[in-house]
């Protein structure tokens, strides 16, 4: 029972890890270059969850100094993840741009077809 107890208490981490592994699985298992990038984006999203969840305290407010509020949520993870989101967007955009160029050059976005075309020029 203790095990289920631990899992239930940390359900947010369970979700995070599920999203993380699902993303990585898509990256490694798919041969379609766009789908790989989708998996990569999902994988990166799991990290946003990993950072943000622990920063939130139920009933906590934004850190504004005021006598009415005593419980604050930590704002730093949000700031960090804002940066990470920008990085993620840039990576996805660059990845998609590369896929467009690969499609122009090879006429395919399936990894196996590309490798085949590469062998027989």
């Amino acid at each position: 029972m203790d095990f289920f107890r631990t899992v239930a208490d940390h359900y947010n981490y369970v979700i995070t890890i599920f999203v993380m592994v699902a993303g990585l699985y898509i990256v490694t298992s798919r041969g379609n270059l766009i789908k790989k990038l989708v998996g990569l984006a999902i994988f990166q999203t799991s990290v946003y969850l990993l950072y943000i969840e622990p920063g939130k305290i139920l009933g906590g407010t934004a850190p504004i100094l005021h006598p009415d509020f005593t419980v604050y949520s930590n704002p730093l993870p949000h700031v960090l993840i804002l940066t990470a989101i920008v990085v993620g967007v840039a990576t996805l955009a660059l990845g998609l741009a590369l896929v467009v160029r690969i499609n122009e050059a090879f006429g395919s976005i399936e990894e196996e077809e590309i490798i085949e075309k590469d062998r027989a020029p």
Partner: protein
Amino acid sequence: MSAAWLHLPILQVVLPLFGAIAAAFLKRSASAFALALVVSWLMPVIAGALLWQVLTGGPVSYHLGGWEPPWGIEYRVDLLNAFVLLLISAIGAVIMPAARRSIDLEIEADRQPRFYCMFLLCLTGLLGIAITGDAFNAFVFLEISSLSTYVLIALGPDRRALLAAYRYLIVGTIGATFYVIGVGLLYLVTGTLNMADLAVRIGPAWEAQSRAIIAALGFITVGVGLKLALFPLHAWLPNAYTYAPSWVTVFLSASATKVAIYLLVRFYFSVFGSAVDLDLLPVATFIVALSVAAMFLASISAVFEPNLKRMLAYSSVAQIGYITLGIGLQNQAGVTGGLVHIVNHGMMKAALFLAAGAVLLRVRTVRIAELAGIGRKMPWTMAAFSVAGLGLIGTPGTTGFVSKWYLVLGAIERGWWPLAFLIVASSVIALVYVGRFLEIAWMREPAEGLAEAADPPGSVLLPLLILAAATIYFGLDTALTAGIAGQAAQSLLGGMR
């Protein structure tokens, strides 16, 4: 002057950043090149001044925006950083003059200003990783350098460059994300991102949170291991180096993997090592085993490789193995050997790839079989290649010998005699693949396609000769390289538990 003197750490990063933005707006290739040249020549001046400050006054701490660490971002320069900063910026400055001719061949004129923009961004990221004292800030710089690196590789003339860049993007992003997961776990446990502060707080957190800390170390090791091409996480490297524009390969081989190694060293010794007893975490043995595998398997791949650039790329994987081996040895001589090999390998591999780029410039091929007798047509280029190649093998009188000397000492000090033997044995494989090419280049009659070949113009030849001369100079006078590496190793190991 005194204001600039105080703000050197931020200038090191901000100058190339602004240079990159300015280069993006320039229309003419010549003006973008001039800008990149000026910026890249300023960098070693700043890095040298920082090293001087550290040598005379101890570690430099710079608080961004005036916020005290650990709340604000801190740039912290100690001997190790200053050493790495000087290497990256000096290599960039030495090879920059060669960029013009090499890039003219491989990239269309209207794209060239943006090429220089990407190079300066990459330089910003690499110098940023080396200078920052904040774990999350290092992630941001890691991604700045990585994203610009993907673009630089994709600019290669062959369409396979696109595929190499795409694959590197996937692997590199997974690596950076692993790193940031590790940093996130450390943040959850300690509530801080400042590396010096992390080192203080991990120790007390160890009792209750040892599992999270071990997981963090694992994630950071694998993530950074992907970036530094630690065997068997090196699969992206050979194609990326082969199909990238020649000059980009020269720059990346001397800088990108080296900065990632620095990051690993920083986390391993300064953050984890000073907080917990590293013998509790069996990472060192693991790294040593992978390093030995890299030294042999990658070297054997190089022996059978028909493409000169890819042969050198496999050799890079093997040489990175020597560096990580030194780190894994965890003693004074071993770490000194690893750190000094960061610099030595940077110089040698830059010279080798630059020579390969010069060959490509003159004869438009780097297939070894088609390069028979190239030494008679391009004597200076191949002389420089030979000197750097001898360094790769570890011939006495070159820098490679200095590195391997310390590594063997480190292995013996640990009592691992077979390892000392393996270091020497792997050099024999390097002798085989370097010797194979040198035999083809010097001993055979020039091939038909090489009738027109001649040494490259001075802008390419001079950097090449400087790098080759440095390979010999630093092999004889080790005061600067091994001396500083030794001091850095001493302070890293001295801070360990």
